[in-house]
């Protein structure tokens, strides 16, 4: 049996990048992924509109109906998972070469200096600093193409960027409001891995709208176009779609030697041998494979410290945007960001922080009619006035890494191949509650300052567990082998 130099499990941002770099250096690489190889022409973008969907794209998360319809998501019936805590956990698994990178929104800020080395002593320090990683940020940003933030602010660094995104009308108004609050909020052009000009053989963005339905032109970075296909051109990559990995086994010397997978097309179990194995199967499935393999876990930490972004948002309407001529304001979603750097205004109610996306303008549809009294022609005309005036403040906050927030593999949750599935144990604690209250307060202040019309929700809550799809943790790095993986 052939022995590859390296076997990579997963073809998304992590697996794809590893495969790209290793094949460029001449290594013989096998890349396994549980999903099929799909063409960009199969992405749901441009293929159907909301009114053709049974639930009009309103059921579940905003992308779910489209991606389910086109078969890009794991079938939860065939590959079940569960959550033990009350709040559940919505887990999104893309099944296609390129993984979740196919359907992300492209927002690409660097971590700030203080995010690498927080000033609090809540948890063990990362073994790396911003300065260690900065040259690699430069390389990756050049490879994938990222729009510039134009300036560094505090601990938030300047990136190596293509021309910056240009703000929309509503974003200009919200920028004025944010920066005049006296809270030290600084609005920057959003860094996105979406090309503002042609770059490395890929065309500039054509602003068709929902980037999260997949970019058919390849103007948004995804692993399939930028990494996997480049690796294939070297002739050194053996791409193995439809290979759902169960585990990695060790040889007599205790070294990883084989990866065992289920071929979802011909329903056969097989193995691939290699000298080195790289797990890039996404945060959660990487740890699922480690746990099912019973390896790399002398610390007992595999699966623990699961975290993600806590999402919250507030919406309103800007009078200065009302009754405008309807023009195409899709752009590529948000064009501005307030980075998480403003430790001076947070006080001591919670530690760590959040980034803010002030956004607004003319979007695809509006339900403002529910908030405006009455019905009939006059009411419809008011809806049209408000339609051009939407504004929203969206927050992404850090959920602290708690050891108890973790996954286990559960024999009762076997998939159709008999592989034990994932059970989540995950909840927010006091720090997240305090951070959320602060988000609502800041959001209200911004909307008031901008002169927006809005109603505060009666019982505001963050969006549900798992919504961000920004899963992190479960195989944490560290200096001490007893507390890291």
């Amino acid at each position, binding site marked *: 049996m052939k022995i590859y130099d390296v076997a990579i499990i997963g073809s998304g941002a992590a697996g794809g990048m590893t495969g790209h770099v290793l094949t460029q250096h001449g290594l013989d690489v096998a890349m396994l992924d549980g999903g099929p190889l799909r063409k960009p022409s199969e992405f749901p973008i*441009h293929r159907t509109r*909301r*009114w*053709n*969907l*049974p*639930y*009009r*794209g*309103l059921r579940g998360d905003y992308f779910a109906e489209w991606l389910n*319809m*086109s*078969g890009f998501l794991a079938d939860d019936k065939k590959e079940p998972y569960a959550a033990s805590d009350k709040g559940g956990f919505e887990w999104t698994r893309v099944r296609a070469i390129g993984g979740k990178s196919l359907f992300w929104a492209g927002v690409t800020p660097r971590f700030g200096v203080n995010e690498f080395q927080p000033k609090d002593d809540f948890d063990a320090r990362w073994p790396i600093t911003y300065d260690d990683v900065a040259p690699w940020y430069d390389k990756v940003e050049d490879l994938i193409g990222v729009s510039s933030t134009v300036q560094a602010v505090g601990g938030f660094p300047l990136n190596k960027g293509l021309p910056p*995104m*240009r*703000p*929309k*009308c509503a*974003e*200009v*108004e919200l920028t004025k409001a944010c920066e005049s609050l006296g809270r030290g909020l600084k609005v920057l052009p959003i860094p996105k891995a979406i090309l503002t000009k042609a770059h490395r053989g890929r065309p*500039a*963005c*054509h*602003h*068709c*709208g*929902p980037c999260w339905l997949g970019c058919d032109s390849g103007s948004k970075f995804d692993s399939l176009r930028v990494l996997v296909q480049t690796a294939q051109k070297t002739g050194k990559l053996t791409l193995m779609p439809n290979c759902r990995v169960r585990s990695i086994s060790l040889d007599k010397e205790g070294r990883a030697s084989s990866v065992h997978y289920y071929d979802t097309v011909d329903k056969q179990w097989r193995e691939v041998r290699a000298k080195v194995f790289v797990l890039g199967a996404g945060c959660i499935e990487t740890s699922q494979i480690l746990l099912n393999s019973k390896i790399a876990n002398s610390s007992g930490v595999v699966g623990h410290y699961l975290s993600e972004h806590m999402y919250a948002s507030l919406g309103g*309407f800007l*009078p*200065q*945007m*009302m*009754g405008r001529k*309807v023009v*195409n*304001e*899709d*752009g590529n979603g948000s064009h501005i960001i307030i980075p998480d750097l403003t430790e001076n205004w947070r006080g001591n109610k919670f530690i760590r922080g959040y980034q803010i996306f002030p956004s607004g303008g*003319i979007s*695809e*549809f*509006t*339900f*403002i*009619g*529910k*908030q*405006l*009294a*009455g*019905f*009939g022609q006059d009411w*419809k005309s*008011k*809806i*049209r006035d408000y339609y051009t005036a939407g504004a929203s403040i969206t927050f992404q906050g850090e959920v602290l890494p708690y050891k108890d927030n973790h996954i286990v593999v559960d024999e009762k949750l076997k998939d159709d191949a008999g592989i034990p599935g994932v059970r989540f144990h995950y909840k927010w604690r006091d720090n997240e509650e305090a951070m959320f209250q602060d988000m609502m307060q800041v959001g209200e202040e911004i909307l008031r300052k901008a*002169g927006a*019309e809005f*109603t505060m929700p009666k019982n505001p809550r963050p969006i549900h567990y798992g919504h961000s799809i920004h899963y992190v943790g479960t195989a944490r790095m560290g200096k001490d082998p007893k507390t890291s993986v």
Partner: protein
Amino acid sequence: MATRRLFLATAAAWWSQALHAAHQHTAPANAAQTPYLFRYFQPRQVATLRSIATVLIPADERSGGAAAARVEEYIDFILSHGATSLKDAWRKGLASYNGKSSAAIETMLRESSKAEFDPKSDSEQFFVLVKGAVVEAFYTSEEGINKELSYQGMKFLMNFEGCTHSSHAIPEGYKPLVGKESA
């Protein structure tokens, strides 16, 4: 021989596409090609709901309104998955409008809408229910998005200018409307 093989391959592809489409669209809520089969509403209820929806969102020079958007189909589809209590509320609410003239429906709706943001009676609560559903159905339909709102996006636009205005003025005679009734 080659022609025959090509035909068989094409036919297989057609079949495969048809199967795939059927799998994807097992329940089209508003597929123009095929008549929608109602899952929950009886024909009389469909007619009543259409009459109500036509008063709520009438046709005008911009669009054909709720009737052209066939909002009753989407509402039926969503309601067919609804809880018994929700279905009961719709059944009773629609029954109270059954057989009324358009003018009588409008009068009833005006009366029920007075307490829109603090509904108490059954008729006031049904108004909120039906208005919310009609808004959702119409403003996510092709008629609502493309014609009524004249949404311009989801098109190729090579150059996105961003804001080019020196300032944005509040329209003359502006009066805030959101949250006023519920405050």
